């Protein structure tokens, strides 16, 4: 490599891509069934161990074989979100080569199968490698061409091959030695082929940085770990993309922690079972996406009126109905805020990133039990399935608070146990079934303080008011939104949930502009006192969200009484790319 090569990680060097930051985006594409995602995750692990931060992004259709799958990963010293353009494309088939040229930076490179793919351009650095042939010569099958390609890509990036070989040995531990050997040989064959035959200049090089104590995982994996650490005793879910991997992770690892994990017949049963389990005294959580949550709406009201705590993970995807099953969207906010007939309190927490997914899950569990109401964790496909590097999770930051639960001794001291006792903060102490002296009726009918169905006007008002007081109590306890950037700015970007990543990444490129960013994780109840002040005082607001109707923007109008001056909405199933936000801000200002 020549001197002008940019070493990613050397503070003196800059990338030529958008924004002038030290990062590089690599994209792998091929047919569904080629193992694109597995290969991508291996590559991520290699870079993690080299001391990099990263964020990955997958695109795949809703089928198992034959469609077009891609995996992209942005790596650098500091990465909040995946970025475009792509700097290195690994094309495992012709379609990948042809389809993604518009996504490439001017100085991009393409690794492709020289025997099966015909280059349709010579504008980029082309690294022609006989992927399939080298895989077979290494003792592997055609499927191992992705291993050859990754080996080749590491050579193009001037990285060492040893890290990748170590990852292969770990991931395939337990497989027959011949298969592991074939994989290692395939990786080496790709690497050596590039080193020997393709002495081209590629403007990016990746070298090891000081090692960080980081982990690399998806939002869903972080939520599953948060559920384990946060003491979930029963998790119920029915498979639905993009929430399924939480269920799968917990089904495998939950039992080691004493957690009951069950897949009932449908989402109706999921939430009703969870409510039954929670009423009996277990700390309980469910997971789904919008379609499954539609089925849960009925039981949501049951949780509301019986005041039974439950945490509901809703990982959004574009609807309505089946919609775009494997893509990303923030279109369910107002549905979640209003689902089910009648009026009752609920809380909505929308983690902004993978760290939030972990730490906010135990908080959601605490709030649900403290206020005896349904609490939502709302994410989306971009966050649920996007892998990110984060500092290693610290369980000493987690507290368990189950709220007011009366013991047998405490119940014995009462003149009478009343499950729905009228209280100032709206929370009536619970006692679990089986506690002597604490029999009661948890009732889906409007009820009196004991739980008997009662239809008087006076009682209705008392109980309805008692329940809604919990929302006021909750509003006093939930954290305020976080302001990034300067305290005062000409333009304040506002967003909620997973749009945090692309906006923070865009902010790096907007440092010469007078822009700050107000991010909401706690979305409902809304607004907290500081949020209201900040939203009212900002000079100019731009609300950025992944939906077409401006659902959070509508909440600002409704509950703060200010009409945001501007907005940026995206609803094509893709997350925001940071460069789109940069362009939008520059045009608006």
């Amino acid at each position, binding site marked *: 490599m020549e001197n002008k090569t940019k070493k990613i990680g050397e503070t003196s060097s800059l990338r030529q891509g958008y924004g002038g930051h030290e990062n590089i985006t690599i994209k792998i594409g091929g047919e569904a069934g080629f193992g694109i995602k597995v290969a991508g995750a291996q590559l991520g692990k290699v870079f993690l161990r080299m001391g990099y931060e990263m964020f990955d992004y997958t695109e795949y259709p809703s089928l198992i074989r034959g469609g077009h799958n891609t995996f992209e990963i942005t790596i650098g010293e500091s990465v909040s979100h995946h970025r475009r353009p792509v700097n290195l494309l690994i094309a495992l088939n012709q379609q990948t080569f042809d389809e993604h040229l518009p996504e490439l930076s001017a100085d991009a490179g393409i690794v492709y199968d020289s025997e099966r793919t015909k280059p349709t351009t010579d504008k980029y650095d082309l690294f022609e490698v006989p992927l399939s042939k080298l895989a077979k010569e290494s003792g592997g099958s055609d499927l191992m061409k992705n291993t050859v390609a990754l080996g080749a890509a590491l050579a193009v990036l001037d990285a060492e091959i040893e890290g990748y070989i170590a990852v292969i040995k770990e991931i395939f531990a337990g497989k027959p030695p011949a298969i592991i050997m074939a994989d290692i040989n395939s990786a080496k064959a790709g690497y050596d082929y590039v080193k020997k035959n393709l002495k081209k200049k590629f403007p990016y090089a990746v070298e090891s940085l000081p090692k960080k104590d980081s982990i690399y995982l998806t939002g869903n994996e972080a939520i599953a770990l948060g559920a384990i650490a*946060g003491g979930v005793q029963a998790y119920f879910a029915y498979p639905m993309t993009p929430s399924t991997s939480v269920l799968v992770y917990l089904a495998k690892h939950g039992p080691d922690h004493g957690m009951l994990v069950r897949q009932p017949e449908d989402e109706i049963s999921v939430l009703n079972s969870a409510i039954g389990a929670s009423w009996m005294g277990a700390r309980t959580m469910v997971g789904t996406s919008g379609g499954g949550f539609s089925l849960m709406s009925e039981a949501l009201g049951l949780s509301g009126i019986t005041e039974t705590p439950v945490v509901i993970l809703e990982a959004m995807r574009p609807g309505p109905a089946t919609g775009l099953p494997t893509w990303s969207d923030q279109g369910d906010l107002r549905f979640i805020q209003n689902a089910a007939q009648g009026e009752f309190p609920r809380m909505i927490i929308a983690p902004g990133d993978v760290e939030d997914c972990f730490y906010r899950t135990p908080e959601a569990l605490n709030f649900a039990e403290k206020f005896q109401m349904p609490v939502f964790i709302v994410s989306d496909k971009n966050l649920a399935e996007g892998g990110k590097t984060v500092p290693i999770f610290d*369980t000493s930051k987690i507290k368990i608070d189950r709220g007011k639960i009366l013991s047998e001794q405490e119940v014995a001291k009462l003149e009478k146990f009343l499950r729905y006792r009228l209280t100032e903060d709206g929370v009536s102490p619970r006692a679990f079934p089986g506690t002597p002296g604490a029999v009661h009726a948890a009732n889906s009918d409007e009820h009196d303080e004991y739980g008997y169905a009662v239809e008087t006007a006076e009682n209705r008002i008392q109980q309805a008011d008692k329940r809604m007081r919990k929302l006021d109590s909750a509003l006093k306890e939930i954290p305020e939104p976080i302001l990034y950037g300067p305290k005062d700015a000409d333009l304040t970007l506002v967003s909620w949930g997973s749009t945090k990543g692309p906006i923070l990444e865009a902010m790096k490129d907007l440092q010469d502009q007078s822009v700050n960013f107000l991010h909401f994780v706690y979305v409902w109840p809304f607004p907290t006192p500081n949020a209201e002040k900040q939203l009212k005082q900002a000079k100019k607001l731009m609300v950025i969200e992944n939906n077409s109707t401006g659902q959070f923007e509508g909440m600002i109008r409704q509950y703060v009484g200010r009409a945001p001056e501007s907005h940026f909405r995206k609803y094509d199933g893709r997350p925001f790319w940071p460069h789109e936000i940069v362009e939008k801000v520059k045009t608006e200002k």
Partner: protein
Amino acid sequence: MILNPNLTNPLKANDFNSDVFPTWCPGCGDFAIWAAVKNALVKKGLHPHEVSLVFGIGCSGNFASFIKGNVFHSLHGRALPAAAGARLANHEMTVLAIGGDGDGFAEGLNHTIQTIRSNINLTYIVHDNHVYSLTTGQTSPTSVKGFKSKTTPEGAFEYPINPVALALSAGGSFIARGFAGDIPHLTDLILKGINHNGFSFIDVMQPCPTFNPHLSYDWYRERVYKLEDKGYVPDNRYKAFEISQESFSEKIATGIIYEEQRETLEGHYPQLKGSPLARQKVSVRSIDGNLAEFK
């Protein structure tokens, strides 16, 4: 154990009365099921705080306000999932699920089939009056063909659901039919259902004199017979199926139709071998062992 000082010792059926007297119509079969449930709980030796009763919605669901115990009045058709969740959270608690024919065979039919096949240890009592009564007289999945109601003025068209055959095909491990006109017999069936280690399905023939007067106590008495009187042994699924195919308009078998011992859902989970989830202390768990794969 602290006993409720207001309870008689030993317990009587009246100790399970709540402060609300039932609002059912005079002559309603629900009174008999109410009595039989209370009798069975007394015979089982349970105190109100030792039993949980999960109700659906309907005249049967209103039972929720008429009994003392840990009561959960759920949604129409959803008593079984709520009861299953409750039982999984506390596998030492006696849990009864109580609903009607609309509840269990229309709105909640999927849950009925799935919960039967799970063989979770619940006792499920269906108030089967072959009509929707709380909504004042519409057709039900068990209404006989030709049944005239407010929503089927020309007579019900569909073939009625056969609850016993359905439960048999779903793999039920305890399937019984009771009659609200015979409280001692029904009490015994419910007690046997509670004692059965697995899912107990008890379909109770219940007259509704207001909205289905044709199927009266007298109509039933002419047709009902007890299987045990015939020396029937409920250990053969094929024979049970034969019983289930008897013509409803001619003769109606009551008693245990099929029973077998099979592993329960809660018994199959290693996590539920020890103390119930609901009685465990919730504390922060270490995830150190889980993090290695993400490094």
